[in-house]
């Protein structure tokens, strides 16, 4: 079990509140420093990385070409889109929430970006902020609906899945056009040395989010709300503000994912983004973040994203029929959840 957040940690950095008791700050010891930067939670994330090593060994035996340098480059580039979505999804799931609208955000960003970039780098400066704004806006709407109007996250974001998609279809009127600019294509397809640009972006965003979750008061509140929202509230945490910020961040990472996808395929496609929310959620679950919130980390999520990506690639080049592939993927997710909730007591 994850250590329950104590009231002083929850309130640390927050303004003195009338309801929360003013507790003395603990003196830093080695163990609190470890806890502060979140190393203790890494034990939980270890599970997926052990699984990943096991999968790599299986791949090395069955289809070694997939983990040769060229294969790895492709893998890292492919997982970046889901990876970006999974970063935001992790934050939201830590608050005991879920965001089903991210696939629709990817689709709409893809359509808007392609139609407005029309292959011109000079449009980047306008279109990229606009696309990020779309993600942020959708996230804010999700957050406000969930925090202020008390709509359950599943219902709120499921509704937004349809609303956002319909808004995008209204915008395109069913006709997707345009093309990604060279800069966006470079982001989605290019490499810096041997490392795909999109993977650098994914890891950079994941690292930023990791820092945000582990080193800032905001991050501690995210964990606190997920573990026990009522306790967090009583400890003086402005839960509404934390929830809204979390969904906004999730929308933002989804928009980044949409931009990377636009660069990866180079144009706007009506079928883009469909089902990506579920793939991202699966990666987060495999990475050890509890759907019930409060437990998990981005280190696990990155492992989960790589695990699912490599598993998918292995299955694509094996002789297993499609239904068998889906069963293997589904069983992997269920197994991961079962191991985390029963056997794996790390963290």
């Amino acid at each position, binding site marked *: 079990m994850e250590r329950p957040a104590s009231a002083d940690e929850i309130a640390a950095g927050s303004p003195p509140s009338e309801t929360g008791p003013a507790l003395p700050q603990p003196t830093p010891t080695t163990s609190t420093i470890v806890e502060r930067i979140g190393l203790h939670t890494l034990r939980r994330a270890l599970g997926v990385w052990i699984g990943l090593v096991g999968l790599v060994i299986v791949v090395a035996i069955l289809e070694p070409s*997939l983990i040769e340098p060229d294969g790895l480059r492709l893998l890292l580039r492919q997982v970046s889109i889901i990876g970006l979505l999974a970063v935001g999804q992790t934050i939201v799931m830590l608050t005991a929430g879920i965001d089903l609208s991210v696939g629709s955000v990817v689709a709409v960003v893809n359509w808007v970006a392609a139609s407005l970039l029309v292959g011109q780098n000079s449009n980047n400066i306008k279109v990229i902020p606009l696309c990020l704004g*779309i993600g942020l806006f959708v996230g804010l709407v999700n957050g406000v609906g969930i925090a202020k109007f008390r709509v359950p996250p599943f219902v709120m974001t499921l509704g937004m899945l349809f*609303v956002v998609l319909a808004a995008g*279809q*209204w915008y395109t009127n069913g*006709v997707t056009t345009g093309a990604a600019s060279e800069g966006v294509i470079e982001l989605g397809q290019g490499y810096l040395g041997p490392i795909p640009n999109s993977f650098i972006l994914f890891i950079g965003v994941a690292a930023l989010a990791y820092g945000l979750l582990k080193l800032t008061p905001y991050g501690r509140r995210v964990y606190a709300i997920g573990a026990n929202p009522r306790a967090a509230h009583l400890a003086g945490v402005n839960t509404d503000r934390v929830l809204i910020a979390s969904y906004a961040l999730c929308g933002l990472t989804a928009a980044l994912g949409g931009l990377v996808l636009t660069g990866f395929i*180079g144009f*706007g496609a009506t*079928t*883009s983004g469909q089902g990506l929310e579920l793939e991202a959620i699966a990666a987060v679950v495999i990475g050890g973040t509890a759907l019930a919130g409060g437990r998990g980390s981005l280190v696990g999520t990155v492992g989960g994203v790589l695990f699912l990506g490599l598993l998918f690639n292995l299955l694509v080049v094996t002789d297993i029929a499609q239904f068998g592939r889906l069963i293997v993927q589904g069983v992997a997710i269920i197994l991961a959840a079962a191991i985390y909730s029963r056997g794996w007591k790390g963290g």
Partner: protein
Amino acid sequence: MTRKTRKAARYVRRSRWKTLALVVAVVGTLALGLAACGGDETAEPAAPPAEPAPAEPAPAEPAPAEPAPAGEEPPAEGADEATATREKVQATLADLVAQEGSADVKSEWPAITESSCYPPATKPDGPLKVGYAYAGRANTWQVQNGDGGVWFLENHPDVGEVIATDGEENPDKQISDIQSLIAQDVDLLVVNPATTAVSPAVQQACDAGIPVVVYDRFVEPDTNITASIYADEVQDGYNCGTSIVEALGGEGNVVLLGGIPGIGVTEDRMAGARQAFEEAPGINILAEGYSDFDPAKGRQVTEEWLQAYDQIDGLWSDSGIQAVGAIGAIEEAGRLDEFKMIAGGQFNHFLRLWSELGFTGCGSTISSDVGLLASQLGIDIVRGRYLPTENIPGPLVVISQDTLADYYRPDLPDSYWATDHLPDSLLQEIYANQ
């Protein structure tokens, strides 16, 4: 709101270069509460509307008394175009009717049996009131099909009034659309069902004695209808499969990249392609995969195939959409020359790559103008000219190396679907602003 202003609103939605007066009229219309329908082109995409666009506003006269929407074209030319299109549609339909019943009957096709709408009541004279219920506007194939059918009916001399409805890919919406068409006592219902859940409404129309022509997507097999146009998707997959076998000289490695696993369209086409490859003993199917008709997934799967297999001679895919992603992967790997044939569909983007990159291709799909054929079939039935006893096979078009130039349209966007029958003025209208 009058019929005329609704019509104006629709024209403005479709093209950007309307007169200021019309724009003002539309803004007024929007203020009256049809914001989502108006599709104001200047709207900020950053502020998505809270609701999907409502139904296609409907009633329209057959031959518009006012000038045609494409202002630069004199009406006479538009009439010529309509006549020419109708003649082409009639010729194609005659070909298809001649093949009536040729396709193996599929269990999902509704059987045509005696019912309240079969044989249907005919109406030999007078203008017809036609209900055209299309499935939605989720992609350009559907848009071309929906708008194409409406245009065709509006310009048809036998038709007095067209009531078109947009199902918005939502069976509940389409059920109420069809019930409203029944209430308006249409002489003919042409319907592309959003899903089989629309079947009860189709049955109601038939029970009301309205001739019903169903096309492209399915209703429940026990639903009573008057006629149907369904493509033999197995044949569709087989067509480019055999082209690949020929291009490879009967020997080599192929991969199959399908759309959505488990749905009839993809599985039937893959079965057809598999059949073609299995008939050629020298052909080895290296792998089969699925893309969900998503170019990103198509690319990902192909990247892995290229990584795992040293020699791939042919790629078959059941649509041009994922083929575009696959070609991106092949091109990046520098292995385009290795492929003796790449098969996709009629997606203009695929045709552009085929044309520009110079590989050998094959394109096979059910044509996106099947709504026009279904409309003409329905009119022929109501006029008593013809009554099919079995399913009419859908128009399967195969684009080969020789006919590529006839189908590829560099002047239209990548999202256009090559078609035989849609008139140019309509295509320009659909793809205006792009």
